[in-house]
């Protein structure tokens, strides 16, 4: 391993490759900030550039830099504008945006940068140590386990619901799942619930829904209540950038735990950064102390650090199946696989033996990418945070324009914009009545994967019997059940205790 590490270091620390990393990080960060352009599309755009470079290590280093930059850029728009452009950064906006509204935008960005850095670095170390072993474990996960894993992810929504709001959160999740069934599913070649409309044939698009659920209601609220924008970071304080020692102590264990957990979730093909970030958020909220739990969703540093480190670690983890098995676990790694093949490199079990310099150069480039990102972005944060000091008369039309643009360039379809406005109005009304919107989006994202995996295991095992046949599936489903039942049971008990009723044991 030491030998491999040295080969990688030698390859990565040439002048050309360092320039590649820096360029990649910068390009990724700036394009990633636009909602609607996630890492996947940016890497796809960069592939022609990477291929013309010719040297596979340099090309991969460039793409890895773009990848990390794009993820960080995506977090930036989640934190500053509540407009998550990528599914993986939706959880970041839960606490990042409230922090920005409290005038701590600079601090939120700093925490995001540091958490991403640690997540990515710890992920890279784990990748180095466990890659060969993990590839065998990942193969143990069949569609039945994926189905169960997603049910666990959905049950974790109980974490988003305050006491007495479990039914609302569950209902919103179900609504999201229902919306995911609109359109043509992968397994059954027939359109469902499209009401004969061609525009619904491919279902609702994720980006439209994300904009309609988060960015649009927020913009409408800002218009409705002008005092609201005055509260939020109007003075753009830059001295708030530093994290206090106490906060550092608070987030350090969170970052540690979530980097490891996120990495292992990322290793499973198909699970990826989205599930890792939601689960990370839910787990941290559940194990936090009572006072800290109340802070979640209102600008908790822990709630921001957890999804940020988890999604970066998961991105690194998703390289395990790619590099060791040749199976891309996510859309982004699928595009990277395409780039690798175009560069005449075939990832798979033989890669580590046949072309160690590429394998190790990728891993080393992950370290460098993370480090460069941190060094480049920390000084830039005050300027990025200045976005919030733009007067609201300018800022709000621009936010609205970017939400429109985000959903338009994805589909190139003007009907999408009408759907966006319609759903945005519905989301605003739901927010009036205190319905949580995050579960809806989570249900929508996971819905299709959930159904596909369920259908596949039903077909493989010819019926529902797989739940009992596979102990791991059963175990995960039991955990999911507990996640839903325990919080409402606890709430009931707490209420009974308040009334002075003995609750028995």
């Amino acid at each position: 391993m030491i030998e491999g590490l040295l080969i990688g270091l030698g390859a990565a620390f040439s002048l050309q490759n360092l320039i590649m990393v820096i360029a990649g990080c910068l390009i990724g960060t700036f394009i990633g900030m636009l909602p609607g352009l996630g890492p996947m599309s940016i890497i796809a755009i960069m592939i022609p550039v990477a291929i013309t470079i010719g040297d596979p290590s340099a090309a991969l280093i460039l793409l890895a830099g773009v990848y990390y930059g794009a993820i960080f850029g995506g977090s930036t728009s989640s934190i500053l504008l509540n407009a998550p452009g990528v599914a993986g950064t939706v959880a970041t906006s839960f606490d990042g945006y409230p922090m920005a509204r409290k005038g701590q935008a600079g601090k939120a960005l700093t925490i995001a940068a540091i958490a991403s850095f640690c997540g990515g670095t710890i992920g890279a170390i784990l990748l180095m140590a466990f890659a060969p072993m993990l590839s065998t474990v990942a193969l143990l996960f069949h569609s039945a386990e994926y189905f169960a894993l997603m049910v666990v992810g959905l049950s974790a929504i109980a974490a988003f619901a305050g006491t007495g709001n479990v039914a609302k959160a569950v209902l919103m999740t179900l609504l999201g799942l229902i919306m995911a069934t609109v359109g043509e599913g992968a397994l059954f070649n027939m359109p469902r619930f499209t009401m004969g409309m061609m525009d619904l044939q491919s279902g609702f698009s994720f980006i439209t829904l994300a904009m309609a659920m988060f960015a649009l209601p927020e913009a409408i609220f800002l218009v409705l209540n002008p005092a609201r924008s005055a509260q939020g970071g109007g003075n753009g304080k830059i001295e708030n950038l530093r994290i206090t020692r106490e906060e550092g102590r608070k987030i350090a264990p969170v970052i540690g735990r979530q980097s490891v957990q996120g990495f292992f979730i990322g290793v499973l093909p198909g699970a990826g950064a989205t599930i890792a970030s939601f689960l990370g958020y839910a787990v941290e909220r559940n194990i936090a102390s009572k006072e800290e739990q109340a802070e979640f969703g209102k600008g908790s540093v822990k709630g921001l650090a957890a999804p940020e480190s988890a999604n970066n670690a998961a991105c690194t983890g998703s390289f395990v199946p790619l590099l060791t098995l040749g199976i891309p676990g996510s859309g982004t790694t699928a595009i990277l696989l395409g780039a690798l093949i175009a560069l005449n490199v075939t990832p798979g079990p033989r890669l580590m033996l046949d072309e160690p310099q590429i394998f190790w150069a990728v891993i080393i480039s992950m370290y460098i990418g993370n480090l460069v990102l941190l060094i480049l972005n920390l000084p830039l944060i005050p300027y990025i945070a200045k976005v919030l000091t733009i007067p609201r008369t300018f800022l709000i039309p621009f936010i609205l324009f970017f939400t429109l643009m985000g959903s338009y360039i994805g589909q190139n379809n003007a009907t999408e914009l009408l759907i966006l406005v319609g759903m945005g109005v519905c989301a605003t009304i739901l927010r009036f009545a205190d319905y949580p919107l995050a579960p809806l989006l989570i249900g929508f994202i996971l819905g299709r994967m959930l159904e596909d995996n369920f259908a596949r295991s039903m077909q493989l095992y010819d019926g529902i019997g797989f739940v009992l046949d596979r102990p791991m599936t059963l175990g995960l489903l039991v955990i999911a059940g507990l996640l839903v039942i325990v919080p409402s049971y606890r709430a009931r008990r707490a209420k009974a205790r308040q009334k002075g009723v003995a609750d028995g044991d």
Partner: protein
Amino acid sequence: MALDRWIAFVILCVSVVYAYAAFFTMDQLLPPFMQRNPIWPSTFPKVLSIMAIAASLIIVLGLEKAPDSDKEPDIDYRRLGDYELIPALTLLGLMVAYALLLRPAGFLLATSGFLIIGAVVLGERKLHILIPVACVATGFVWYLVEEVLGIFLRPLPFFF
């Protein structure tokens, strides 16, 4: 009845329609060979619709009592008239107009118009700053999307 229960009622109605569609309209269309599958396209929607009906009934009937929270809501919908309702509705109308005009009027015209009118609705009066900023931003975004990303956006009205 409070707003949240009204919303739950609306969702209940939607789920009932969805359930009707799932239970009674989907299975006839299924080709015979697919009927031998253990899972049909309607299976998952059927399960979902029943769960959604149950969850919305819990809220409509008020079975789960939320603890009385004294926290002030972001926006109190009971006093909606006290807020800047007219600009908000105008902006929504403007977004619809943008969606309808984007193709016929072309990207540059529709976008700069949207940005300028939007800012004026919100009370911006410094037109000598606003108009150049809106036009430059529009041109920049168009250049980025069209030239750098290679996504076609019709820049000018259709008759050009």
